[in-house]
């Protein structure tokens, strides 16, 4: 059975209805010359054109999250609860690439043994996707098997058409949200194929070579990684703007009275990431670290899950201080092998 569909006047109108239904909404807004996901109270605050600088993952996987707290007693230690997840939230205007990123994170954090702090936040998020009609130069969703109108990870997907906006109901959570929206949505169907085709045609041609996962694995020992990584300065920008990167560190912050254990974002490009206490580092140089990033996304993960751990948003390419392009490096390394 195909998903239930509705029509609405515009994405803005759907947002207005969601806010009118009393929902807490996080949507792209313009802040300091960049688009960021932030809490909105009026539909006009949302900026529904363009790509946010950071991905949508932060709502489910925050930069810093308290896992639990503790208070030193005399004697003993008293454990205190972790963070209270934010109120149920509609994450509105999420591009299909970002929504697909959440779907990948759901798989990672949901796999047994599941990650309770992530799931607690994620269970309170309804994702309203918004098809992408203005791809940017760094966009590459079609290269990883997605499209500007892909439905992965969205509970509802809005696709702007000439005659209004098509609303696809993709999950029970999406249907529950639709139930609150009343007359803003009217039953109806439309074909989004033309929109998809137009957006795809506007994208720069980017493709990943066939057999990349195996090609990269075979290229593990190649000297090419050192050349490719020469530019990389080892910051965490690529990982932190990425919708699917999920590596984290766990740290304590404390004083004499107590403290808390926090989960904070971490990145495989940092030298300390894999450093053993003994001083040994399995990924001792930037070449090994860059290789890990490329292989995790395009070899290790796809071999286990049948798809790249990349949604083609291109943020890492756009934001890299040194102009690294993971698609280019991966393709070159795999091709250079043998």
């Amino acid at each position, binding site marked *: 059975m195909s998903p239930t569909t509705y029509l609405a006047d515009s994405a803005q109108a759907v947002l207005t209805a969601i806010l009118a239904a009393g929902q807490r909404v996080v949507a792209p807004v313009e802040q300091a010359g960049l688009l960021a996901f932030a809490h909105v109270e009026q539909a006009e605050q949302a900026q529904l054109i363009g790509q946010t600088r950071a991905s949508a993952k932060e709502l489910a996987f925050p930069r810093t999250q308290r896992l639990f707290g503790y208070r030193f007693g005399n004697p003993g230690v008293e454990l205190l609860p972790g963070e209270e997840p934010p109120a149920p939230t509609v994450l509105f205007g999420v591009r299909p690439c970002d929504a697909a990123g959440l779907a990948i994170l759901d798989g990672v954090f949901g796999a047994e043994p599941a990650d309770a702090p992530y799931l607690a936040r994620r269970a309170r998020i309804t994702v309203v996707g918004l098809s992408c009609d203005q791809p940017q130069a760094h966009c590459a969703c079609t290269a990883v098997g997605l499209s500007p109108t892909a439905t992965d990870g969205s509970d509802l997907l809005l696709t702007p058409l000439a005659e209004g906006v098509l609303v696809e109901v993709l999950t029970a959570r999406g249907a529950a949200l639709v139930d609150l929206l009343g007359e803003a949505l009217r039953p109806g169907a439309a074909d989004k194929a033309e929109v998809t085709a137009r957006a795809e045609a506007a994208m720069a041609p980017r493709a990943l070579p066939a057999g990349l996962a195996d090609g990269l694995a075979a290229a593990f020992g190649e000297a090419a990684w050192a050349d490719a990584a020469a530019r990389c300065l080892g910051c965490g920008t690529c990982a932190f703007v990425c919708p699917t990167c999920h590596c984290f560190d766990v740290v304590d912050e404390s004083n004499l009275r107590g403290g808390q254990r926090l989960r904070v974002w*971490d990145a495989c490009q940092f030298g300390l990431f894999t450093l053993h206490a003994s001083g040994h580092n399995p990924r001792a140089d930037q070449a090994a670290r860059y290789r890990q990033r490329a292989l995790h996304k395009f070899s290790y993960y796809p071999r286990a899950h049948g798809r790249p751990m990349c949604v083609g948003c291109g943020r890492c390419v756009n934001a890299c201080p040194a102009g690294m392009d993971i698609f280019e490096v991966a393709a070159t390394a795999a091709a250079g092998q043998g």
Partner: protein
Amino acid sequence: MRTETYEPHLMTVAQVRDETADVRTLRLTFTDPALADSFAYRAGQFAFYSAFGEGESVFCIASSPTETGYVECSFKLTGKVTSALRRLSEGDVMGFRGPYGNSFPIDEMVGHNLVFIGGGIGMAPVRSILVNCLDRRSEFGDITILNGARSAADLVYRDQTDAWTARSDVRCVKTVDPGGDSEGWDGEVGLIPHVLERLAPTPHNTKVVLCGPPIMIKFSLISLEKMGFSGEQVITTLENRMKCGVGKCGRCNIGGAYVCCDGPVFTAAQIAALPQEF
């Protein structure tokens, strides 16, 4: 019962034993008696040990599942958390979460001759499976133990090694690197691979458990191969930095294998098939 993934159980430090100048063993008991009864693990599994205020460290569980009522860990002083764990004394409270990871395939080891080789602090995971096997002694063939260290002062589980040596149903040898012997040393002198070759255990129907620093593993594997052991017969453990234990934090992988979930126990054959990045 704990519901959150990362929240540790509170444990009481029941006993503190110094194995060497920088290796200490802590015996931990559950503050929650219900947990003490229900807690179960298998030899080779690891856990996270919390020093509240400083963080968590990962070590294998050094006690055997047959030693009930407590868990033990042995750790070497290396950094912030191990320093803090060393500041604990008997009666203090610390955190523990686990067990995680796979375990030594004890069921596959049944009916085989066994060779246990531990180098330095690598003897800790070996001890867990070794004691487990000794407690089920009749199920196994010949048992050979080789406990090696850089120097006599660095040899862990010294008293237990002497107790194993005294047993008639096992062959137990301790060794130190050349130059590491001190006055009164009554064990072998020589690098583990060399002593191993002198002991010459038969590869026939034998399983080897091998843990220690990377360089020792590397040369021991060469010796074992020379003696006719196949990669499937040699079981070892890998360690990597890790923060979660549940395959999420993304730092312990070697290629597509996560040490926390797919390991820490691997056969030498499995390790040979991984990218050489550890």
